[in-house]
């Protein structure tokens, strides 16, 4: 246990120390000393902003992410199972996937409104969709044939086998989507937002409030860590069998 905690904090501590030392006497306007950044951090984020900016951002992020998860897995299973459906949809999906959100956002806004949260939630969901969808499709396609045959011959519904069997790969996608969700949360707030963490960071950047801008980057990083910790707990539970299996056979050496 202690070892695990040490492992988790060792490298970050070293990196932070390095950052601290390298910027300690910095006079560069853009690389303020870490001490200065940390000094403004609480004032910047833990007052009014927690409610007006952090909370709405996280709410949009979670809703968008969960939508992507449900749609991505459902569509991924359908597309993964059916070669015809895959051939039909793949180029179109690739087409939309390749379009950068900043240019897609106006189109989404056209349908979902320019202000308000809906278009932002859709932007986040749309961006998170791809890793989840792709991984699900690949995971489903890679399921052991004997396992599938077994399910078929006992007339089990296909998804009851495919979902757990593709579980590890779906988890890989879901994990990846999580960090994309944070990215898109910021991007979505670049357009038509009056509040949010991303909007604030951009605002700081535009008004050349550099230490505050750095605190924003730190807050985003911390948010990412927090989300991924939560995710890890969930993954641990859902894929306990998989970890057990791999650990058991690897307990070896």
């Amino acid at each position, binding site marked *: 246990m202690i070892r695990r905690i040490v492992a988790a904090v060792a490298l970050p501590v070293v990196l932070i120390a390095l950052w601290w030392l390298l910027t300690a006497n910095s006079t560069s306007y853009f690389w303020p000393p870490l001490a200065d950044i940390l000094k403004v951090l609480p004032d910047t984020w833990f007052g009014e902003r927690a409610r007006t900016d952090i909370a709405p951002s996280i709410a949009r992020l979670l809703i968008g992410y969960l939508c992507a998860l449900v749609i991505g897995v459902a569509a991924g299973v359908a597309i993964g199972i059916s070669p015809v459906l895959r051939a039909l949809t793949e180029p179109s999906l690739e087409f939309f996937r390749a379009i950068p959100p900043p240019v897609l956002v106006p189109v989404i806004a056209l349908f979902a409104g320019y202000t308000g949260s809906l278009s932002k939630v859709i932007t986040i969901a749309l961006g998170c969709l791809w890793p989840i969808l792709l991984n699900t499709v690949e995971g489903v396609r890679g399921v052991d044939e004997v*396992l599938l*045959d*077994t399910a*078929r*011959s006992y*007339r*089990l519904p296909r998804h009851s086998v495919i979902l757990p069997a593709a*579980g590890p790969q779906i988890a890989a996608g879901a994990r990846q989507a999580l960090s994309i969700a944070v990215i898109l949360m910021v991007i979505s707030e670049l357009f038509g937002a009056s509040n949010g963490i991303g909007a604030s960071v951009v605002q700081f950047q535009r008004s050349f409030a550099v230490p505050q801008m750095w605190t924003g980057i730190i807050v985003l990083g911390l948010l990412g860590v927090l989300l991924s910790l939560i995710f890890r707990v969930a993954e641990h539970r859902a894929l306990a*069998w*998989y970890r057990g299996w791999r650990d058991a056979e690897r307990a070896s050496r």
Partner: protein
Amino acid sequence: MSVLEVAGLAKTYQRNRKPLEAIRELTFTVDAGQLVCVVGPSGAGKTTLLRCIAGLLEPTSGEVRLNGEKVTGPPRGMAVVFQEYGRSLFPWMTVRQNVERPLIEKRLSKPDRRAAVDEALSAVGLLDSHDAHPWQLSGGMQQRVAIARAIAYQPSVLVMDEPFAAVDAQTRAELEDLVRSIWQRLNVTIVFVTHDIDEAVYLGQRVLVLSNRPTVVLEDVTVDLPAERDQISTRSHARFAELRAHVYRLVQQAKKGLRETSPTL
């Protein structure tokens, strides 16, 4: 009345863009409640045949009919024990869940399921390991879970592909008797693939001997031993020895016939 009809069945695989004729022509029928064993050299096409019967593989030509209907997908009421037992168990489920899952699909009530699972697990000697995951079991134990799953399902047709390959001699004998007792009690139709000729003769009412690839039925041997069998007396029966020797010769002949290369070194 014949439950299962295999008519002119042929299967050609593609291997590296070249056709590979696995099964050339198989025709036979199995009556309701019969126990038929299938033997043949390794690579003859036994698994291929079973997969066609189970509706998991489309034949290149010919057809399989079950109760008069052409098989196009996995038919209702059939249970399959796969040769790759390890890969056919769901690693995310415990032993109990693996056996119980198909019964849930069959809409058995919870107490009924429980009873059926317990009975099947104790029949294969695995009740104590009910809460283990498949990957926590030995090879033989995994295979017995797959068998327990099939018998708990109470199918009307039971298809088994070398189901006792990984268990020890003693357990094997017990499981053989288990299969016969279930067969007699439930009047289920069984197709049983094995490479153990003694086992084929001991278990079956008929033994289908397949030739080497490209496969045809070499002979359909009727096992005219008494219906009441037991490990000691049946195996020491003179007729048993005769049949055994006959089938052995057939398999030997099958192997020589179209053998790819013969062992040397």
